[in-house]
């Protein structure tokens, strides 16, 4: 693992997963302080790309590296070590249904060694940013669909990660500011959206429709 290595690097990576579609030969690099936007129409393979970046689906060909560590052949424990530096928000990876929103946000913090008191304070702060304070004690299943998406995004943002991988995020204004503060502070993000206009601040934008790169 090299300290100067890109946070995320895909070289001619192809993925296929039943239920999530396929995507072929993607080249992608996300470095510290960068926000890379991948956009494309429905069915372009955005969901499977997000899953492939974290090793939930293995690349059929090509390679995927997180923080300089190739994901191919890693066992669960090794995968977890690199995933610990990441935070994912995706509709394909929802919150735990048997815990309320607050517990869902507390869990990744406490599992990273944050004290209960500090974790409580951080969760309160993030819930307020996402205007979810009133929904803190509600289980995800009982939330409105829009709030459920926000809660998922809040769980990713509550974590002090190096790389944020966000599938179709929609930030409230205050949370958006905190997200960009993290990027300016040296974190990186791969954001997957349908329309790139949502993130004009992107360092690079990659169009899965015609696979052209701009930025």
């Amino acid at each position, binding site marked *: 693992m090299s300290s100067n290595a890109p946070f995320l690097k895909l070289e001619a990576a192809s993925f296929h997963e*039943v*239920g999530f579609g396929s995507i072929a030969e993607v080249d992608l690099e996300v470095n510290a302080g960068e926000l890379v936007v991948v956009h494309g129409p429905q069915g372009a393979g955005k969901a499977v790309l997000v*899953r492939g970046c*974290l090793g*939930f689906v293995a690349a059929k060909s090509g390679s995927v590296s997180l923080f300089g560590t190739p994901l191919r052949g890693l066992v*669960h*424990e090794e*995968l*977890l070590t690199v*995933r*610990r*530096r*990441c*935070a*994912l*928000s*995706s509709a*394909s*990876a*929802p*919150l*735990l*249904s*048997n815990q309320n929103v607050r517990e869902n946000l507390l*869990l*990744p913090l*406490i*599992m*990273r*060694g*944050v*004290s*209960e008191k500090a974790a409580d304070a951080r969760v309160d702060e993030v819930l307020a940013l996402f205007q979810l304070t009133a929904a803190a004690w509600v289980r995800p299943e009982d939330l409105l669909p829009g709030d459920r998406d926000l809660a*998922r995004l809040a*769980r*990713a943002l509550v*974590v002090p*990660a190096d790389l944020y*991988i966000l599938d179709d995020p929609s930030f409230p204004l205050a949370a958006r500011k905190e997200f960009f503060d993290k990027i300016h502070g040296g974190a990186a993000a791969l954001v997957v959206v349908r329309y790139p206009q949502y993130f004009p601040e992107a360092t690079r934008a990659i169009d899965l429709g015609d696979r052209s790169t701009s930025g």
Partner: protein
Amino acid sequence: MLSTVALLVAAVRGVLRLPPAARTVLRRMTFRQILFTGVEAVPIVALIAATVGILVILQSASALPDFGQAEFMGRLLVLLIGKELGPILVAFVVASRSGAAIAAELSTKKTRGEIDGLEGVGVDSLAVLVFPRVVGVAVAVASLTVIFNAVAFFAGFSFAALSRASLTMVGLWTTLFHAMELADIGVAMSKSVFMGTAIAGICAKHGLAAGRSSTEVPIATLRAVVSAIVACVLIEIVVTALTVDLGALTR
């Protein structure tokens, strides 16, 4: 079986890597599992225990004197109820009740992607979802076995004392305690802990092996319960074979 052992080892390693604050959360999850598997199962376990206790003790009390073996009744009850029937019947109840629940819950989480959601924010799903269930079920099976034996003996002795004037509660309990050895309790508890660990481990393995289709939930649950029951039978046979005095059978 090897994959279940590998899963358990991975879960324990995951817990050992966790910071101390995280272990407090796991302890809470384990208590919740003990509550569900142990405390909530007490009524059904007590009912089965009372039935088994009454039937076995009544039959023994009526048949053994006919063969001139009445003095061996205490030892027979310790071996039959305490060491053999208690652990295995409790394990069957727990496998069909909590084992099914664990497999169904974990396979549902898997099909919905909740486990990917956890791992996507760097949480070890095996440490959080498997370890507390395994410890909770093992503790619950051992505790339920103690309750099973207590209820079985109490119900059986009460029924026997009421139905036969020659038998008294004090006499029956005295016979039982004289016949009981520390090793009997050790064997029964070891079986219970092994069975509890096997039930939770096997059911977690089947639950986590489910794919993304919701039709896999009932399949995983069914396979988990059947495999857990088979594992409990094997543990019962192996531990009994290792601890029983086989030489006595041929004498």
